[in-house]
């Protein structure tokens, strides 16, 4: 355990922020979804690091991560299905072109 906990946290925050940038800046919805996946992964790193450094004998942290996997998979499936569906209608999945609904 030579690596300080804060290194993991900073890494996770950086990964989270990079993912968030992808969410905010990419035009293609699939790329946005990839950003979301990065964010979830960052949180997983957080959780596992906390588990290892704070409660190594209680496996709740790891169990939490498994649930995040499940949710991420479900979310990706539904999200991608939505994108394919909207692609069929509009022939585009650029997020910034989806602005028929506003104000």
């Amino acid at each position: 355990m030579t690596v300080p906990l804060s290194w993991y946290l900073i890494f996770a925050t950086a990964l989270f922020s990079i993912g968030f940038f992808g969410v905010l800046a990419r035009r293609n919805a699939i790329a946005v979804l990839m950003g979301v996946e990065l964010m979830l992964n960052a949180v997983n790193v957080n959780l596992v690091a906390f588990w290892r450094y704070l409660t190594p004998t209680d496996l709740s942290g790891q169990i939490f991560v498994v649930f995040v996997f499940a949710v991420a998979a479900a979310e990706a499936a539904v999200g991608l299905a939505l994108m394919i569906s909207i692609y069929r209608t509009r022939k585009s999945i650029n997020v910034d072109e989806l602005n028929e609904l506003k104000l």
Partner: protein
Amino acid sequence: MNVSDIIRLLSPELILLITGFVVIGVDLARRREDEGRTAAAVAVVGLILAALAAIFLYFSSPNQIVFYTMAIDLYGLFFKVAAFIGVALVIIASVNYMAGRSKFLGEFYALLVFAALAISVLVSATNLILIYIGIEFLSITSYILTGFLRGNERSEEAAIKYFLYGASAGAILLFGMSLLFGLTGTTDLAAVGKALEAGGDMHWLGLVALVLVLAGLGYKASLVPFHQWAPDTYDGAPTPISAFLSTASKAAGFAIVGRVFLVAFSDFHPEWTQVLAAIAVLTMFLGNLTALKQKSVKRMLAYSSIGQAGYILLGLVAVSNDPTFGGVNGLMIYLFGYIFTNVGAFLLLLPIEKKSGGSTDMEQFDGLATRAPGLALLMSLFLISLAGIPPTAGFIGKFYVFASVINQRMIVLGALAAVNTVIAAFYYLNVIRHMYFAESAVEGGVTVGRGLMTVLAINAIMVLAIGIFAQFFMTWVNSSLALVTASGF
């Protein structure tokens, strides 16, 4: 705790689970023949059974923790009953609307039942993991339901925006939860609360987690500035789903915000009171002022429901131990009445949309009093309730929430809320004005199906009943304030 106890305590959830599968099965067997009517009927019966089970539990064995992560307490049961009724009303009203719009009607009703299941789990959850799963479960079913009208650009756009917003907010929520876990080493809400209380000098760093969790949960309750998905989504979604999202789903959001803040963040009460007060003021003003400028009634209701969220939040801001004006009881009765009022108002748009071919602009309401006096009267009743004018459910809710605020000596907050009711009265009345004081450009009456009429009538009766027999409902609410904070089996 033996098996029969578990089955009994989880009976609402189990009934919903079985109902969901039965609905799909029934629809597979009868597809095309009845346009989903059987499936809808089964779903409604299942929801009513689940509500009855919840009511039964309410009287039998309140306040127990089941399987470490769920508290079967009166607080949760209250929201369960409210949400089940709301979803059942939405389903009945959807039958005519959805027939012909989609081939997957069984799935539609099954998803609504599963959404009810998600709410049911969420409002009872006392563990960060279950809260996360519950929120995401509710969100994912909502995304699908919002985008259910395949090929309809607005519905699809609404769904994808909701999805992107919800997924990102979910990640932020999760980040906050991971910090809570890191600070306290546990995922149980009560234990988190205790650990934060014992946190010593640095305990205020828990505020970081609080902010992230607030953003992640607040979006469900459409609190400003986490509300922006809401108007677009309510506008584009199938109208019954807008009704669902702005009522039952929002109620679940408030329920869980309430539980997390009261149990896990109880030590931060002075801090979050200020933050939530600011958010409530922002939410009220933004919702109401923007609603003022809308030309489409559907969009106006979307913004109005944001404004309403601001009033509801005041209940949490003014939380106290006062037995009469404790704040949370105001929040609960407000939400309970609001479910009926807003479901009614949104569903009333269905016949209007049908008549106009999709538009809900103010002009479509012109002269409705002549063309369909009953419908106009019902709409007026719902709008009056939203405006908080007695003797309706909306008045009772506002009365308790405002009284709690004033009771806490938050005079400025009370005054700002009062200003908002005046602004809101203006745009609600504007619709009444269109219905009663304008010559209609459109000719002919508005037809309302039997199912929808039943739902509207139930809503109207409930709106008035809560207003008139407030004694009965408030007794119920006041007895529901119990929050299970103990952990363990």
